[in-house]
């Protein structure tokens, strides 16, 4: 049975509330708007919204919305989607809002396309490709991109390592290992590797990435691995059973 998604708003601006009520009804949501904390908190419990829109500067009190975000996040847990609305374009405001527990931030005056794109995204609703904002090419000079993938170390030996990753890394991917282990095995705290092999780890819902040490390129690393291995106790019967 199809259930409408429920949205609750807290904003002291009457016009905003009217606007949102109209737009959300048109888009087939179950919408309720409040303009004070008391009724908002009541509705939170009785109406049980999937998503809330919170004005950051309620009653003209700068940043009052933060308290609401913090309280609600603590009370309702991670599943409720919290989106902040504000006239301010301040990066600090945005970062603080996200840190206090909001999922995202929208600037006023509200852009309908952007508002509903975000709502649909966070509520896991299907977005019509025709309704999507047009993509532009990123200029070649600026398109460099670096990102980090967290890994778990499963095995270390003098010949290489096995790492667990929830994301798939194709063979021959170039990676630079950083973090606690990299600090131990390399004086630079970073070691360059090429992925040698990848296998699926169905049980842990991810992949086992194999990397190999090159005796020339990684001679210092291999020595540091031996230093590490010196201090590791041999596996017990119990450990072997766990494998």
């Amino acid at each position: 049975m199809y259930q409408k998604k429920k949205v609750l708003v807290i904003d002291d601006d009457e016009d905003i509330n009217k606007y949102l009520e109209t737009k959300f009804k048109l888009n087939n949501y179950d919408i309720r708007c409040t303009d004070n904390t008391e009724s908002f908190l009541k509705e939170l419990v009785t109406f049980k919204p999937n998503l809330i829109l919170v004005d950051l500067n309620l009653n003209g009190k700068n940043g009052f919305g933060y308290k609401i975000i913090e309280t609600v996040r603590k009370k309702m847990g991670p599943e409720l989607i919290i989106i902040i609305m504000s006239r301010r374009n301040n990066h600090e405001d945005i970062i603080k809002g996200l840190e206090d527990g909001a999922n995202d931030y929208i600037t006023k005056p509200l852009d309908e396309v952007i508002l509903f794109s975000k709502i649909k995204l966070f509520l896991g609703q299907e977005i019509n490709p025709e309704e999507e904002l047009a993509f532009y090419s990123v200029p070649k000079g600026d398109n460099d991109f670096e990102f980090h993938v967290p890994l778990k170390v499963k095995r270390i030996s003098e010949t290489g390592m096995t790492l667990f990753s929830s994301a798939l890394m194709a063979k021959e991917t170039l990676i630079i290992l950083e973090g606690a282990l990299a600090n131990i095995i390399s004086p630079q705290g970073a070691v360059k590797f090429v992925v040698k092999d990848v296998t699926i780890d169905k049980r842990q819902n991810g992949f086992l990435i194999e990397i190999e040490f090159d005796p020339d390129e990684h001679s210092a690393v291999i020595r540091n691995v031996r230093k590490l291995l010196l201090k590791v106790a041999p596996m017990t019967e119990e450990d072997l059973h766990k494998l």
Partner: protein
Amino acid sequence: MATSKSKSILIVDDDPDLRVFFRKLLENMGHEVFEATNTTDAANLVEKVVPHLILLDINLDEEKGFVLLEKLKQLDPYQRIKVIMVSASTAKKDIANSKAYGVHGYLVKPVTNNQLVTLMKKLQAQLNFPNYIIPEGQENLHVKAKCFGQMSKVNELSFKFVSKIKFNLPHKLECSSSFFVKHNIKHAQFTIFFPSVSITPGLYETRVQFIGLSDKDMVAIRKVKTKKA
């Protein structure tokens, strides 16, 4: 050029001719060789280079070689480093002491080429330190992989990039690009909501949502009107 068969060997002997003899032979076999004339220097080298094997003379100038074995109890509590005692004597007492310490062999001087080569062949397989396999639930050695890609498309809400990584689960992405710096959106959070899409085998396009952009930031992105992708 080192290979994975090359081992690290420490020679502890006060006889310079013997040290040269061992070094030449072992280096010819492709191994890395270190030398010490006393147990203090030897212990320091063990800490510094962690050799696979120690060739230890029982009768050093000022002391007995066994002193190093005592020090090794602390440096190498699980006996990963193999030790071969080298001695001029076949004295039963020395052999008995060596056995008590649990060394892996005994060479009697004068040592021939053949004897050393045969010994190395015999030991080769045992010299690698055992694998360290981290039991499930105890993975506390954290690492992250810095990976590289190229941003391909962008709009006010998200961007796409191409790389050799295929993401399957939604999560926050730690990432950077000149594009973010140039358009002053470094403060944004980046979240992957959808699994990556395969372009060709081994190459994937991933969509990342901008979280926490102000409308001023979006105006900056809109200005990137090179061509519609």
